[in-house]
Every structure is written in structure tokens, then in C-alpha cells.
């Protein structure tokens, strides 16, 4: 603790991001983006339910539980340029923490910060039955969520709020190689979080990778038309977060590095994708007593229209 004020200390100590971690985009991986095309004039609609449990090893025994729904709408402006909007809704964002007053529970709910972003296909190489694409992505997160919710203990800690109150920017590049049998994706993304009212979430750099392997139908021979596919998928997320900025300094118990692996399944038809994954920490290197992920469950669907 950097302070003797328990509740203020809780605010500071929560540290690590309490973002929903809703993955934003359209096809392919469940936890990050893809470079696959959105046809001109085509819409994509995605809903993803996220259940995230987090905890720390510190004396305050903090436990964070998030239940959120991420809604994404995408539109193909041209065959190379697509725009997306994402809004998270928090059914519940809850912190259980031990204080000198005993174990307390604090929570909030409501819409979070809206993200708007674009993706441009910079390079593509199409061959029969496969494609390779590289696409930069860039976007902004607007401070649309409530960042000043309070309860009987006072204003909620900043990381527990549904919104962070600041404009955030992010940019990166995603690459996809897809064949009829399997698909490989990689993404490098940097997010710079803005500062509002003396607080800024730590900036984030992440490298994501995924492998999807078609397990059904086993063979495409004798399969005319457009049969639905079932993919087994394994995704990897390596994430580094800087410390949160509070006042004139940084929170020593925030940020750090983590590596998550996510096995999952995906059912893909012409118009629908139904999918589910569980992200599990393989390695975590939190700064101080920063909160770490225990697991993240993601289930949802995507729809073409």
C-alpha cells in the first residue's frame, strides 16, 4: 500500500487493467483481429460474452469478476477498407477486497467506452484455395462509459469504473494466411491510454497469434457447395502493460506481462460463426501485487448480412 487510506489504496492497488478484453473484430480468431476481407457494402455483427476472473497474491486478497457483452458492427467501405464500432456492456464489474473494515464488495454496471477503428488491406496474395493478407488497424476509444460511479464507500476505484474517462488510441498490424485446411494469424498492437482526472491506464503492447485447424469436414473431397466448417483453434496472447499513472507518479502494483493460451472451437457457416474459447494464463509477471488473470471465457457469434 502506498497510502494509509484503505479505500484510496484499493483504488490504486487494483492496478492492472479491468478492461473487458472484448476482442473486437470480425472473422477468424476469437481473442483478436483478422486480415480477412469484408466485402464492399457488407455488414458484420458480432456479440461476444466475456466472463473474466482475476485475483492477486497480495494481503488485500483482491478478486475481480467481470461479466460483459461486447457488441461489434463492421462495414465494408471498399473491399480493402472496413470500419468497425464496438461497445462493451458490463452486466457486472465487481471487486472483492479485504480492508481494515473487513471484506467488502464494490461493483458497477453499464456501457463502457466505445471504440471506432478502421482496417486497411495493404497487401494481399490470392491463390487457389488460399490467401495471404497484411492489414494495418488503427482506432480510437472514446470516453463514453461512466467514469465516476460511486457506492456507499465513495467513488469507485478508477480501474473499476465502466469507462476510463479519456480518449485512447491504438494502432497495429494484423496478418492472415488462410487455406482450406488451416489458418494462421498474427497481430502486433499498441494501445496508448489517455489521461483523465489524474489517472491513466498503463499503455499496452500485445502480440497475438492463432492457429485454426479444420476438424470437420475431414476432407473436402465430394463436398460441393459451401459446407459449414468446424475449426479447433489455439490462440496465444503475449501482453505487456505499463504501470498506471496516478497523480504525479505511477502505481507500483499495476501492469506487467502475461502470456495467455486459449484453446477453443468455432463453427463457421456462410452467414454465421458460433465460437467459444477459454483463455488461461501460462505465465504472468505482474508488477508488485498487480492483479492477474485466472481465466477468461469467451462465447459468442458473428453474423454476415
Amino acid at each position, binding site marked *: 500500500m502506498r497510502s494509509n487510506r484503505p479505500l484510496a489504496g484499493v483504488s490504486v492497488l487494483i492496478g492492472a487493467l479491468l478492461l473487458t478484453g472484448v476482442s473486437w473484430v470480425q472473422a477468424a480468431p476469437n481473442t483478436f483481429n483478422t486480415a*480477412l476481407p469484408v*466485402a*464492399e*457494402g457488407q455488414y458484420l455483427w458480432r456479440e461476444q460474452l466475456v466472463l473474466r476472473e482475476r485475483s492477486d497474491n497480495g494481503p488485500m486478497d483482491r478478486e475481480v469478476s467481470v461479466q460483459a457483452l461486447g457488441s461489434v458492427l463492421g462495414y465494408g467501405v471498399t473491399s480493402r477498407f472496413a470500419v468497425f464500432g464496438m461497445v462493451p456492456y458490463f452486466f457486472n464489474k465487481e471487486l472483492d477486497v479485504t480492508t481494515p473494515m473487513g471484506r467488502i464488495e464494490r461493483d458497477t454496471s453499464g456501457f463502457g467506452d466505445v471504440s471506432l477503428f478502421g482496417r486497411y*488491406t495493404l497487401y*494481399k496474395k*490470392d*491463390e487457389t484455395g488460399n490467401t495471404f493478407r497484411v492489414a494495418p488497424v488503427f482506432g480510437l476509444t472514446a470516453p463514453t462509459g461512466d467514469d465516476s460511479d460511486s457506492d456507499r464507500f465513495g467513488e469507485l476505484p478508477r480501474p473499476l469504473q465502466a469507462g476510463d474517462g479519456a480518449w485512447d488510441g491504438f494502432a497495429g498490424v494484423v496478418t492472415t494466411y488462410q487455406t482450406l485446411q488451416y489458418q494462421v494469424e498474427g497481430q502486433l498492437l499498441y494501445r496508448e491510454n489517455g489521461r483523465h482526472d489524474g489517472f491513466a491506464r498503463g499503455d499496452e503492447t500485445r502480440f497475438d497469434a492463432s492457429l485454426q485447424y479444420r476438424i470437420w469436414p475431414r476432407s473436402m473431397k465430394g463436398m*460441393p457447395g459451401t459446407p459449414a466448417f468446424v475449426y479447433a483453434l489455439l490462440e496465444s496472447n503475449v501482453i505487456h502493460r505499463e504501470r498506471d499513472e496516478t497523480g504525479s507518479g505511477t502505481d507500483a502494483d499495476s501492469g506487467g506481462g502475461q502470456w495467455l493460451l486459449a484453446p477453443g472451437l468455432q463453427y463457421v*457457416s456462410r452467414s454465421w460463426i458460433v465460437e467459444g474459447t477459454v483463455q488461461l494464463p501460462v505465465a504472468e509477471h505482474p508488477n508488485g501485487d498487480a492483479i492477474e488473470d485466472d481465466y477468461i471465457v469467451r462465447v459468442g457469434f458473428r453474423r454476415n448480412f
Partner: protein
Amino acid sequence: MIKKLSLLLSALIFSVAVLAVDNHYVLGVDGLACPFCAYGIEKRLNKIEGVTDVQVDVGESVVHVSMREGKTLTEDRASQAVDEAGFTLRSFSEAEGETGGNDAQ
């Protein structure tokens, strides 16, 4: 008499069927490798006036397009639609009969 009438009716039905036959095309499409991507191609091709049916064969990377009687599909228009969907037209051919022909590489 009945036999002659039946023969005449059959001939009439056959001739109408021949006259009303649609035009069919087979498009080879590169870059197509999953069912979800096929939807965009269908959507772009269906916007072309006269298109009555689009069938995507993902495994063979070909798309069968049917046009209403009297309507034709040019290679340039097909290429544009495939490009708008984010893919690349590899080949274009007019098919014989209802089921289309082979992919003309």
C-alpha cells in the same frame, strides 16, 4: 387423336423450356478458403442485374452464376464483383446447360 395432342403438347413444353433456358457462368475465384468468406461473393454477384442464382463451391474455388434469359455476364463485370468482395477472379467461362461447365483455367 389423343396421341397426336400429347405429342404436340410435349413438343410445345420442350420448345418453351429451350427458349427459356438461363445463361450460366463459371467463375474461378482465388483467395476463397472458408464458408464465411463466400457470403461476400454471393452478395456482390447478386447485385448484378439479371443474376438469378449464385452457388459458391468453396472446395473447388469456383462460383456458378445463373442469369435470367436474355441477360449476359461479362468477364469485366464478374471481375469487378469478385474484386469488390475482396477476392481475385482467376478464370471466367460460359457454361453449357443448367449445371455449368468445368472451370476454364
